């Protein structure tokens, strides 16, 4: 993926991967642009940042570990409802809400990871789908807790650090969501470029071989799945806090399917792929639906077909492929 000679020693290899490229710095600086260039779109930007975080959590299990999940919204929803419920019970402090959501989603992720780790391929996909659907129905039935169809009412998020209020324009919302995304991204980046991250990639490529070199496959899968659940839970909590709404669709199939589409669109296993996929998909959807509220589906479908035809392995995958081809031809 880079033109530098790859060092032989593993530690050097990892260190080389960990170095910040100026394109990455440029990316993160670009995320500050909406404050200046498009201040009318900050609410959308904050929802894109939250979705990008959610897609990142899916990338951790799908892109890096090969676990395809059609029910990842379950953890997003658990995080969202935890933060929302905490607020309706009187404690609306945002940062501790995130912690609570992380704990709840992480716990649920840990418990389900025992099932997940044992399966692969279609069975895994359908089991994750099933878990998501069961949770959605359970949340609907437990209307006394979740508010059911109408959604949770009475969420009121307190000011961040006692100072910053969530306003109509979305300045606070975007700053908050972006900060959350950045911090967790740093952690994920460190995680991926570590021996543990390499082991995960090994599991993705050939899970049967890994025990031969002493890697505890099931334990690793459980760990990364729990971590991904925590990240998804934080994303859910961010949404609940910035919009002050939570409803059943937070853990619904539609959300799980959308996040999968965004990840594939951007390119799996590349950390930035998920973020770019989220940006492209949500901006496209917003623009298409603004132009043509009834039939925007059509244009989004065409976009997906076009991307997958022209850029194999997602946007970043396709761009990397092109970059390689351009470098090879003298």
């Amino acid at each position: 993926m880079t033109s530098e000679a790859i060092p032989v020693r593993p530690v050097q290899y990892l260190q080389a991967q960990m170095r910040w490229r100026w394109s990455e710095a440029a990316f993160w600086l670009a995320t500050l642009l909406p404050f200046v260039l498009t201040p009318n779109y900050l609410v959308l930007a904050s929802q894109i940042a939250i979705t990008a975080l959610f897609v990142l959590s899916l990338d951790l299990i799908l892109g890096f570990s090969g676990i395809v999940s059609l029910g990842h919204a379950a953890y997003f929803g658990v995080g969202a409802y935890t933060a929302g419920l905490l607020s309706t019970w009187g404690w609306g402090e945002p940062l501790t809400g995130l912690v609570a959501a992380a704990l709840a989603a992480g716990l649920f992720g840990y418990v389900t990871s025992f099932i997940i780790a044992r399966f692969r391929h279609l069975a895994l996909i359908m089991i994750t789908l099933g878990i998501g659907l069961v949770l959605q129905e359970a949340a609907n039935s437990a209307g006394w807790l979740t508010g059911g169809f109408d959604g949770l009412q009475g969420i009121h998020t307190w000011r961040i650090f006692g100072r910053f209020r969530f306003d109509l324009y979305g300045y606070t919302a975007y700053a908050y969501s972006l900060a959350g995304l950045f911090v967790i991204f740093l952690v994920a980046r460190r995680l991926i470029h570590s021996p543990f991250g390499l082991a995960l990639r090994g599991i993705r490529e050939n899970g049967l071989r890994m025990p031969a070199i002493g890697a505890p496959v099931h334990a690793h899968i459980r760990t990364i799945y729990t971590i991904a659940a925590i990240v998804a839970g934080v994303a859910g909590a961010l949404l609940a806090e910035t919009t002050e709404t939570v409803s059943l669709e937070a853990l619904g199939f539609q959300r799980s399917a959308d996040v999968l589409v965004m990840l594939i669109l951007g390119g799996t296993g590349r950390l930035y792929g998920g973020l770019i996929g989220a940006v492209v998909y949500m901006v496209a959807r917003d623009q298409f639906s603004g132009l043509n509220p009834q039939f925007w589906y059509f244009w989004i479908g065409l976009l997906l077909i076009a991307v997958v035809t022209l850029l194999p392995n997602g946007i970043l995958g396709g761009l990397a492929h092109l970059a390689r081809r351009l470098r090879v031809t003298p």
Partner: protein
Amino acid sequence: MQKVFYGFVGLAGLALAIFGIGPARAVDTIKIALIMCYSGQFADTAVQMDNAVKLFVKQHGDTVAGKKIEFIRKDTGGIAPDVAKRLAQEAIVRDHADILAGWILTPNALAGADVSAEAKKFMVVMNAATSIITTKSPYIARTSATTPQLNYTLGAWAAKNGLKKIYTMVSDYGPGIDAETWFQTGFKEAGGEIIGSVRFPVANPDFSAFIQAAKDKNPDGIYIWIPGGAQPLAVGKALAERGVDPAKTKVLGQDALAFESALQGMGDTALGIITVANYDYNHDSAMNRDFVKAYNDEGHRNPDIFSIGGYDGMHLIYAALEKTGGNADGDALIAAAKGMSWESPRGPMMIDPETRDIVQTVYIRRVEKVGGALRNVEFDKVPNVKDPAKARMKN
């Protein structure tokens, strides 16, 4: 990675070009944001409502009190309160909308209410039927109906019209549970007995098991509440197949059960189904006949409850603007809207000055064959029905 960077610079530039320059604000325009689920599962309701809005503007012009009316249409895609809230915020912040209208689904309406309250904008709910919506913001008025308003009335009517034992079946989600609660309350308060109840899963394609279980209990009547779409037809089929004859065991429900498309599919097995609604295109008044004709001329379809909600919502907006002389300020409009009453194609209606909710005549109809086709014929009614849920909340 280089490509990524250049890609981003390009995107940023594009963003600047498209988004950075917002639309100019003309002082003599009033912008109405129509926030509905134009795509997705509930798209049909938005189509009917939007067509009614377009018809109203066609009939009454796009100028009110010297101001030009402009519409901004936004799609929520279905149940998505976070998206609905964002669209409302963007409508106000970016597009400078004065009025937030539409609102088909309750979760979206509740989210939008927060924005209406914070930004102090007039909000007209044209469909969402949950009672608490109007309490969420002091700037909301509703022109459709509330679930308690319709179902409590039906329950009370059923008990007073010879039905003693009823089995209720509803869809297991907010509106269905709401309907069940209020139907049972109305029925029991008027002396009836509920002998059993069941809630079916929301996405339920086949009702035969549930209908059979109901039939086993031998009730005088079965009350069924389901949302629109494919389900009314499936219910009709199950009723026919399990041998429930609506002429002998009364089948009661809300409007969706006897929707036009469902009746066409059910055929004669639907005869005798009794439903409660605030509007039907067969309503016998000159005003309604004109409305139905105009609606058909535009879209080759009959109007339904979603259409009338939209049509009357526009009427309310125009009438309120006339009253305030074109002032689109939230406080002015809601003050003008309170207590407003008029004759609509559905019958007389009024915006309750206290609750800002709708007060209207509730009709009881039966499916009958008129001129060879199946229609909902209104044969009883209860005038001036207020929302019972809020009435009790006060006490």
